[in-house]
């Protein structure tokens, strides 16, 4: 495959997919360890009403209002879940189920009620995004990477997701020690003066930002898969958090790249003519990696449980 073809058509979707995968996998490590893995699921469902409301208010498909709407919806959902949990004394899982399904239903209803025939806004798009369409038309080959004019034509999603990835990495790096301590031993974290409540909230917000940014580029199905599958697979390989995070980044990258390539070229190899959904394929690949890790990973069993190898 030559640079003339690869750079404009495949380089940017690959990068965006990889960045989105890593940006979700990083906070996902902590969420999985804290048994909050389904936060990603809830967030990606409530994003829909958020963007629909933003669309209704602004009347146009523009990025920032929609990101704000999505973030707002995520915050509303977190507050509602907490309120229902406390007011109704309901277990967190059920409270979450009540809130995100209702908000998703409201989003679908709003979408049906408004005339969105002129714009590209529908449930399918929200679910599995459109990674394949994020192409770099101005590029002519590898040389374009040094060409300022062509670089200006990069899809804006790339810079947004790159920025998000940097933000998430900085958050993880800055709060590494408190995050690590409070994840494994919340009581001890409190005694040495870490404000665990605020830190937990910050983690959820970081995850929400990563989810919303990734959602904008690649749809919500990747978001859920990347929050959970790479960290879960990494969890089977090691008992050290540092190694787990490194592995999760490797797995996230591997699923993004292999998923994209398989989705784009796999059908051609099999004699088909059209590509399949890249987002779906990336999620599938991450699942295969998780399955392999769950079957062969050296640390797959719970400590104390005898391995039935």
């Amino acid at each position, binding site marked *: 495959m030559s640079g003339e073809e690869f750079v404009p058509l495949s380089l940017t979707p690959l990068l965006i997919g990889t960045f989105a995968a890593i940006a979700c996998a990083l906070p996902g490590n902590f969420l*999985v360890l804290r*048994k909050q*893995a*389904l936060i*990603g*699921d809830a967030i990606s*469902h409530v994003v829909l009403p958020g963007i629909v409301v933003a669309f209704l208010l602004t009347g146009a498909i523009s990025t920032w209002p929609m990101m704000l709407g999505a973030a707002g919806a995520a915050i509303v959902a977190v507050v509602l879940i907490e309120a229902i949990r406390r*007011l*109704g*004394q*309901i*277990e967190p*899982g*059920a*409270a*979450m*189920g*009540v809130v995100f*399904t*209702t908000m998703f*239903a*409201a989003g*679908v*209803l709003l979408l049906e*009620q408004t005339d969105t025939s002129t714009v590209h806004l529908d*449930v*399918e798009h929200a*679910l*599995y995004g459109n990674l394949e369409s994020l192409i770099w038309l101005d590029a002519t080959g590898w040389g374009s990477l040094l060409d300022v004019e062509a670089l200006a034509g990069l899809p804006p999603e790339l810079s947004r997701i790159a920025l998000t990835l940097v933000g998430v990495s900085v958050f993880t790096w800055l709060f590494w020690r408190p995050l690590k301590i409070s994840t494994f031993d919340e009581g001890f974290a409190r005694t040495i003066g870490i404000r665990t409540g605020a830190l937990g909230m910050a983690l959820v917000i970081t995850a929400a930002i990563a989810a919303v940014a990734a959602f904008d580029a690649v749809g919500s*199905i990747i978001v*859920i*898969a990347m929050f*959970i*599958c790479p*960290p*879960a697979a990494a*969890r*089977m390989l090691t008992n050290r958090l540092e190694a787990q995070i490194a592995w999760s980044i490797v797995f996230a990258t591997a699923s993004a790249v292999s998923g994209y390539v398989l*989705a784009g070229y796999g*059908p051609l190899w099999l004699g*088909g*003519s*059209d*590509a*399949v*959904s890249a*987002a*779906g*394929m*990336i*999620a*599938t690949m*991450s*699942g295969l990696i*998780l399955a392999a890790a*769950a079957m062969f*990973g050296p*640390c*797959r*069993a719970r400590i104390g449980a005898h391995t039935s190898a």
Partner: protein
Amino acid sequence: MIWDALTLQLGYNATLVAIGATLLGVSAGVTGTFLFLRKRALVSDAISHATLPGVCLAFMVLVALGGDGRNLLGLLAGSAISAWVGLLCMNWLTRRTRLAEDAAIGAILSVFFGFGIVLLTIIQTMGVGRQAGLEGFLLGSTAGMLWADAMIIAIGGAATLLLVLILRRPMTLVAFDPEYAAARGLPIHRIDLAMMGLVMAVTVVGLKIVGLILIVALLIIPAVTARFWSERSEHVVLLAGLAGGLAGYIGAAISASAPNLPTGPIIVLVSFAFFVLSLFCAPKRGVLAAVLRHLRFQRRVHIRQGLLALAQGQKIYEPLTLRLLRRAGLVRPDGVATDTGKARAGKALRDEKRWEIVRGDQAHEATAALYDGMRDIETVMTHDQIAEIDRQIGGPQGVPA
């Protein structure tokens, strides 16, 4: 218009949908209750998303066999198989690896759904041109519901209800106390699996009406709603069935009464309305009841403290206490006790002294534990006991008049 819809006067299709939605709501509510009581409500999310690959594969097989890919029975069979596979994978992940259940749920949900979407895009490029119906399974589509579809939903719902009826006792036992159930020799894992199998059946039956993303709501919300109204599991099950059925019926009616009102989301929103109503209005567990209870408690504390203050001749400055005492006719507007007020105050102080004796006496230990500063001593002791205590206290000892 809405009245016509509620009385099933809006034509054949609307009637079919309303009946189907009601049956679905009842069976989802009843089944979901056990899931909720077992604290595994979100497992339904994984199960429902895991149906997608099965639907797509079934469609492909049906087309490959030369049939019409939209045969509902075939699609539902496919969805059931893949949901079952997803369920087994999830069970395996939680039991055999170190992953917690939430991570397993999320992994199964996203991977199966992602794979389903891959298959969906393959179908779109297969060029058979009849795939338009498949997206309907995401959010449900009731527009073209046939008599046969309604029959499948009715039979499936009835079968689920029957199975719940048979399995209700072991499922309740496992939900409340798995250790005890294990000690009794019940096969917990098999019962759990049966419970999930029922949830899967409801999900599959509901694909046509509400779609796989929103069926979770029908399983969770009615159960949570019903839990507000009762502390007895059999009542909760029945109430959940009622709430689910009503939501299905009203939701289907509303959605038939105007254009652009998709059935699934409307049913979910009606269900949520019931939930909010229960959250606020339920007796005992509702928010309103809790607020009233708090206010009543506050009033009792203030009146009690006010009476004690009156009895000891202290002046009351607290405005709420004054207002409450005045309204009860215990003090005059200038803050001086009325005759009833003096009598009640004297009684309050004497009761306090009686409690002091009770609490100082080892023999009354169990009774003393009931002391909370407000309980009337007559409600916990006999007249003879109180007389004995009064004998120990003796007569007035210089209490200010």
